[in-house]
């Protein structure tokens, strides 16, 4: 019994953490390039609704997923134009993007409320791996989009830290002027990474509407985009730490339900609901102490529009 409860919580941690993970990875790329995009929630919603619409029409969740990427990427492109080309304030534009995304997703999705999805991403255990005790049911009895995130994280880590392109990405976030002087096209790269970041946020949204809770409901992300933004800081702009953070958030959330359902201990629910945030504060304190020593932090040029003439 103890064991199955543990497995339940851990498996739920991975499932609940995945949409946040996708969005957080996207935001990491975006912020690493020096652009702060607070529109994650809006892009997730647009991804969720567009993915759902296409998946319902075509009966193919993969088609839906691809369209979710494109739609959220398109929204991110608007953001990129406003903040990179026009150098609008990133915080304000990001907030506007969230509000816009919420509205436009509600508008587009109106006819799709109450319409079930013909085919969603189902749990697909990986044959041999899912038989491994503990790890199997937790990590390898998930759906395809979760497996995709497993691949994405190391790929992104490698890209960021081990390739020339990744070095350029970090450079334009730390010191765009220096990167520019070395012949790196700051504007083009920022555009690219903002759009890729948006696409990943869209993937997170699509995970919600196509796999986790297959349906479309207005505002169904319910604040997960904001958690993803917070997670980026929590993870110190590192994709590997983002995995830990996302699963931690997912796990503590699942834990509050499991504690209520599987035990007879009567704990006031308000106390349980407080726990994820208490834990967040504790972890942040510990992590900050650790990383301050190592001098890591936000990209130096984060949220500062780059202007060639203002040097």
């Amino acid at each position, binding site marked *: 019994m103890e064991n199955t409860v543990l497995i339940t919580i851990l498996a739920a941690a991975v499932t609940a953490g995945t949409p946040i993970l996708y969005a957080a990875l996207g935001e990491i790329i975006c912020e690493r390039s020096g652009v702060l995009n607070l529109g994650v929630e809006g892009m997730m919603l647009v991804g969720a609704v567009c993915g759902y619409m296409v998946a319902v029409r075509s009966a193919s969740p993969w088609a839906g997923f691809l369209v979710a990427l494109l739609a959220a990427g398109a929204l991110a492109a608007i953001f990129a134009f406003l903040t990179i080309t026009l150098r609008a304030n990133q915080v304000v534009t990001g907030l*506007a993007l969230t509000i816009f995304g919420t509205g436009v997703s509600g508008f587009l999705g109106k006819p799709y409320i109450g319409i079930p999805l013909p085919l969603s991403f189902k749990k697909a255990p990986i044959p041999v791996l899912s038989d491994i005790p503990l790890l199997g049911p937790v990590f390898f009895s998930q759906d395809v989009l979760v497996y995709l995130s497993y691949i994405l994280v190391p790929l992104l880590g490698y890209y960021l830290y081990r390739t020339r392109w990744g070095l350029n990405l970090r450079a334009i976030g730390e010191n765009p002027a220096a990167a520019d002087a070395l012949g790196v096209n700051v504007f083009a790269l920022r555009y690219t990474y903002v759009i890729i970041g948006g696409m990943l946020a869209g993937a997170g949204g699509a995970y919600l509407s196509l796999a986790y809770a297959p349906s479309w409901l207005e505002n169904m992300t319910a604040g997960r985009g904001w958690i993803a933004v917070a997670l980026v800081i929590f993870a110190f702009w590192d994709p590997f730490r983002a995995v830990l953070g996302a699963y931690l958030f997912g796990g503590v959330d699942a834990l509050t339900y499991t504690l*209520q*359902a599987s035990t007879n201990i009567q704990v006031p629910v308000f106390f349980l609901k407080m726990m994820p945030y208490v834990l967040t504060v504790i972890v942040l304190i510990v992590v900050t102490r650790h990383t301050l020593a190592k001098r890591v932090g936000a990209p130096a040029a984060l949220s500062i529009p780059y202007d060639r003439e203002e040097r």
Partner: protein
Amino acid sequence: MKKGWRVLLILILVLAVAVAAAGCGGQEAAEDGNGENQTAAGEGAQDEKMKVGFIFVGPVGDLGWSWTHNEGRKYLEEQLPWVETSYVESVPEGADAERVLTELAEAGNKVIFATSFGYMDYVIKVAEKYPDIVFMHCSGYKTAANADTYFGAMEEPRYLSGMVAGKMTKSNILGYVAAYPIPEVIRGINAFTLGARSVNPEAEVRVVWTQTWYDPAAEKQAAISLLDAGADVIAQHQDTPGPQQAAQERGAYAIGYNCDMREFAPDASLTAPIWNWGPYYTRVVEAVKNGTWQVEEYYGNMKDGIVDLGPYNDIVSQEIRDLVDAKKQEIIDGKFHVFQGPIKDQNGEIRVEEGQQMTHEEILNIDWFVEGVIGSPS
């Protein structure tokens, strides 16, 4: 020069975004559907059509609470061709509500339905300023000369849905995904439990609080934790079909809420206690028109049809249907009362003596769980 062009472009874009958002978000969406009415209801036509306004706390697309009220609004318009309705959705329970209510009053509405608890004080405030307009507030307890309250005895169909769940369970563990520990929700859990144990004394109800009305993923997660704890029927006091989907995926059963949710979980969703506001709205508007309207603090029941048990899933056997339908008739005939004694609380103490029944006041303020519920009522 260049800078000025940029500023202009930003302004245009921001404006475009704002216009699009206003149009899409539907913050103040006028009546949909009948475009002809809108144009026809010019100045000359105002005498013919009576205007009725609605204010909703959530989006009408929530497939839950606000959705059921909006269905009632549509029904009203269908039934009474001389009525013209409009609504404002997603209005927070705060100062915004007062502004929206005032706007609806200024727009010439003769009856205004405010469909969420938190609008209460604003309804009374605005009602004072517009004595010729009738204000109807759902689920509150404050009235005025031109402001009344209305609500429904959801505990009656909840009891019946509990009977279905009690009959269908094999593990004798029923899961209940619940939003907030407030009397309305606790009342529903108690009625559900009483119903389930009336046909299956072994049944226990495990409650998980989600602290949200509206989060499909969280609700689904809560349902999964209950399924993992051995529950094989999931009931819900939530506004999305998330818990139903969890049951569907695990091959378990579920009881919906607000409206029929079988579409989302065709094999799992057994039935649902549902709201049916339309006939009541029609009665109120007719009464206002005829001048017979008065404050009555309406608390409707299954007899009136404002609450009901939704259609059964095919899996529910005829035997169970007959049993539940018979009890439904007893409730409608007034022979059976959901909260009639003996009722014990969670600790086994008798709270309602045999032969007694809880008063309306006690039912409205209930803050303890009946025997058979596992969970904390706070």
